[in-house]
């Protein structure tokens, strides 16, 4: 009898002995269900997490939420900005930064007279936990175009997202003057943060659209290895992502460099591309496994590329497969990344979430990918990669319906600083650093 079999017998005995055998169950090790019962768990008890005190720093050269490992819940919220004058834009930036700093740090909101509306929604309780929250502020092309005094300072590669050939863009889900990427361990923390921002800036920002998403969680691997999460097509997504812990690589791929062709104020910032990509999951699920794997270019179970390799981290060698007999030439991963010396210029850092919204008029699931990526050069990055993907076989199963292009300014350096300061200074607006 193996150890596993022993456990099985113990479990069976507990079940067989039932409630009356509580004592012996304790002695032999309780099943999970019985342990919960023993602790007096009730159906409406809050689920327990030991991650609510996880905290990311708001301050730094770069904004948080870009190379920060992606947590389980994410959201993009896009706004129309009403601030027109430098003074109002400064108030917008400062207020955003101070709210984000508080929310990411966590703490107790001020107490007011109970005849007044409370300053905090309270949905996370009287003390706001950080819960691994990051809020990343990004600016759309229209933010610059609609303000004469900012237009000359627009990031060189920032443009309004144009429809690709497979897109069916819904105007109500596209673009925006300002976007917030909010991510944390739980959807509730993200919602709390969004409501806080809305409540604190009603006169300067009007919400236009938002999309929430999630990432399936995995149990920790015994050897500590990392795996990419799966998207709603059931494939690992992010296997070929560049190493976000490699600062030199991030400087090349993600952050706007010094001495480039970009305005000086953008240094340390990044371009953000957001796409709401609907997946026709019913149809996908009715597609033969082999065809799915040919379309993507990977094995579904492991994420390994075709032609050898056991894990998603194995790298396909296209130089030995010029005809596409191993990995089809139009496979998604092959078109997205040619894996040549030249194509290194087109690398992007992806940070996507899966979304699920409801049911289409045809009775199909409205779900897909809230695609988010960051790059130092939007044109060489997302725009080029998307152009390579145009016409791919995967298009039959996906339909981009929304999103936008944004520029993510550099981070706030410390408490006296705020996100967007370098832009205001570049535009000749005197900013007083104060805490």
């Amino acid at each position, binding site marked *: 009898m193996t150890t596993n079999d022993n456990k099985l017998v113990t479990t069976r005995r507990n079940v067989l002995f039932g409630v009356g055998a509580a004592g012996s169950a304790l002695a032999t090790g309780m099943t999970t269900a019985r342990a919960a019962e023993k602790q007096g768990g009730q159906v409406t008890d809050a689920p327990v997490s030991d991650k609510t005190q996880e905290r990311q720093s708001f301050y730094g050269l770069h904004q948080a939420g870009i190379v920060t490992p992606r947590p389980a819940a994410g959201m993009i919220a896009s706004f*129309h900005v*009403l601030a027109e004058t430098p003074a109002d834009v400064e108030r917008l930036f400062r207020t955003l930064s101070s709210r984000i700093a508080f929310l990411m740090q966590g703490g107790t909101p001020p107490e*007011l*007279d*109970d*005849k*007044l*509306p409370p300053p905090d929604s309270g949905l996370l309780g009287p003390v706001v936990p950080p819960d691994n929250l990051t809020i990343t502020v990004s600016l759309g092309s229209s933010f610059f175009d609609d303000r004469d005094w900012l237009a000359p300072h627009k990031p060189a590669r920032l443009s309004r997202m144009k429809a690709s050939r497979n897109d069916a863009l819904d105007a109500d889900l596209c673009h925006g003057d300002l976007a917030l990427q909010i991510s944390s361990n739980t959807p509730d923390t993200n919602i709390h943060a969004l409501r806080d921002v*809305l*409540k604190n800036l*009603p*006169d*300067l*920002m*009007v919400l236009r659209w938002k999309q929430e998403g999630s990432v399936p969680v995995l149990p920790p691997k015994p050897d500590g290895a990392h795996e990419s999460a799966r998207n709603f097509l059931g494939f690992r997504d992010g296997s070929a992502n560049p190493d976000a812990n490699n600062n030199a690589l991030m400087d090349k791929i993600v952050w706007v460099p010094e001495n480039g062709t970009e305005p000086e104020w953008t240094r340390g910032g990044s371009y953000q591309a957001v796409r709401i990509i609907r997946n026709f999951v019913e149809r996908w699920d009715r597609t033969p496994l082999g065809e799915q794997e040919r379309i993507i270019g990977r094995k579904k179970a492991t994420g390994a590329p075709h032609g050898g390799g056991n894990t998603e981290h194995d790298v396909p060698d296209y130089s030995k497969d010029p005809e596409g007999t191993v990995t089809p030439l139009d496979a998604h991963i092959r078109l997205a990344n040619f894996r040549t010396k030249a194509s290194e210029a087109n690398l992007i850092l992806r940070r996507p979430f899966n979304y699920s919204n409801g049911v289409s008029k045809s009775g199909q699931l409205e779900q897909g990918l809230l695609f988010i990526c960051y790059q130092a050069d939007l044109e060489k990055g997302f725009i080029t990669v998307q152009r390579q993907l145009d016409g791919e076989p995967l298009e039959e199963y996906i339909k981009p319906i929304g999103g936008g292009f944004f520029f993510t300014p550099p981070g706030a350096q410390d408490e006296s600083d705020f996100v967007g300061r370098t832009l205001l200074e570049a535009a000749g607006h005197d900013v007083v650093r104060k805490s």
Partner: protein
Amino acid sequence: MKLKLVLSVSLLTLAAAALPRMANAEVAPLDLVQPIADYKIYVSENLETLVTDTKAFTDAVKAGDVDKAKSLFGSTRMSYEAIEPIAELFSDLDGSIDSRADDHEKAEKDPEFTGFHRIEYGLFTENSTKDLGPFADKLMADVTELNKRVTDLTLPPEKVVGGAAALMEEVAATKISGEEDRYSHTDLWDFKANFDGSRKIFDLVRPLVEKEDSAFVTKVSGNFDKVDTTLAKYKTADGYELYDKLTEDDRAVLAAAVNTLAEDLSTLRGKLGLN
């Protein structure tokens, strides 16, 4: 900060039972008597106008005069929209006078769907007064009944003061999108009336708040002014442009002003010590 909760001033000696217990010692309870009385007059005047206008409107419907009925639709509603917080105290009448198709299971075809928007649907979507007679009669009867009930009503101060914010919440939640007058697109008339009704309440209690918090008063007035300026762009000889003329930018300006007014006016009751 003077908003801090202070010991309640005893009001046991006051005869007016409707007066609230004042938590904010800076505003004397009797100070609210005059504003509430003035508001009652404002409501009465609006209801009289509503009865008169509804008579003309429903007469046109019953006479089969589609064009005239259409032209009276937007203006007739204004006196109702201006005093909506009070009209809504009678949920049966508010339902039969001002409910929308989506409040009813079978939408436009639902027999329970009556009132302004049912008639609006007939006039603007079906371009006809056919079968609208009974709806016209019912609307007239409901409006008359509303006037009668409000005449006998002692206005609860917290409903009056809270009404300033409630009107903004209505606009913010279900009107800014243009879904209220979806057949006629006369939403800007409604906006104007909602804002005027909210501002009336604010203006009546303004002297009581001004002493305490002049920055608040300045900010709220500024936002009301912003709304007026924006809406004025859409003024026509006899009313307002249709909702589809509202530009994306102006809609955002209105939305931001509404949201800000809703946030700020949500503190008005507390500032006056009302529960």
